[in-house]
């Protein structure tokens, strides 16, 4: 559903960064983007998001100059014939309760960066804006690009 509104969200985020002066009660740590080859059309962003406020918050997506679409994804793990099968599902948002932490990591939930327009290399930095709630709450980040995050 979010997909249809993403152009709107991006434009709204311009206003949001001009700001209402309210600081979002959110702390983001350890954000990074997976380096992928030119043949890849998608990659992922990972990070730990803390909700330091009193109200629940939803991470609803993002935007970046390297792609046209960034959406939250839930990784599913189910057993088929005794073997685990992993998949993903698009969600409109990932909820973070007050005082709670959302961990986005390889093999788990992540922000999927789709329709890549450029392929940043390991060691480069990428501009990434994270969208919360209605989408007019945003946080701008500059995140490193790794093939695999340092353990």
């Amino acid at each position, binding site marked *: 559903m979010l997909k249809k509104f993403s152009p709107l969200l991006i434009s709204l985020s311009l206003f949001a960064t001009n700001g209402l002066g309210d600081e979002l009660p959110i702390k983001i740590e350890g954000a990074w983007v997976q380096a992928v080859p030119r043949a*890849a059309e*998608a990659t992922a962003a990972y990070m730990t998001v803390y909700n330091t406020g009193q109200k629940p918050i939803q991470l609803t997506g993002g935007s970046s100059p390297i792609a046209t679409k960034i959406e939250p994804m839930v990784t599913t793990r189910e057993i088929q014939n005794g073997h685990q*099968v*992993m998949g993903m599902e698009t969600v409109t948002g990932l909820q973070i309760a007050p005082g709670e932490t959302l961990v986005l990591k390889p*093999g788990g939930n992540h922000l999927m960066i*789709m329709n890549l327009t450029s392929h940043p290399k390991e060691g480069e930095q990428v501009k990434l804006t994270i969208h919360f709630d209605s989408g007019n709450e945003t946080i701008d980040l500059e995140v490193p690009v790794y093939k695999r995050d340092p353990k």
Partner: protein
Amino acid sequence: MSKTLSTPSGDRLAESRTARIGWRVYVTVGSVLFALLCAFILTRYTTYRKVQEKFYGQALVPAKDAFDFHLIDQNGKLFQLSQLHGKLVLFSFGFTHCPNICPTTLSDLSKIYRALPEKDQGKMQVLFISVDPQRDRPEILKEYVPYFDASFVGLTGNSDQIAETAKAYGASYEIVHTPGEDPDVYFVNHSTYIYLINPDGKWQLIYNFDQLRDTEKIVADIERIHVVK
């Protein structure tokens, strides 16, 4: 000879000398044999211990004959598993539109490969088998797979060959379309195991996705397979 034998004293002397020599020979030969036996038991025991030690990966006991898949490699050439006989093979299933699991798996495999001593790198091959043959043409795989390590090889095939290969290793995959989206835009949910084929062409171990991060433990498994062999 006959003269010596005719002398009774000489006879006794010869007899006792033979007895003494015989005794020494028996002791010497006996000790040597005993030492050899001990050494043999010790070596067998050490090997036995190495075999018995638990692998980090889940072991197939006994190891199965690995299904000899016939696929197409990233250069568009026919490729079958048995052409790697004598090498240790690690492979996984995936697709290049995969944002999360596949780049992570290939990055982990490249860490493992680079952590191996050079002599063992030459005795090993990493393969990535596409479960999205419709989009993953050889030329796409050629750009994608060697990005993680120049020695890695991507494989594709027709949908029957891929299905047959996945089935032989107990892997599943399923194409998932997003309602209302372009039919060419889809995800592939898939098994995320890593399969280890030993140099004898036997499927010996299986790793799950989360284990792959433990580079040292997997390197230890690989080195042990080479030693025990």
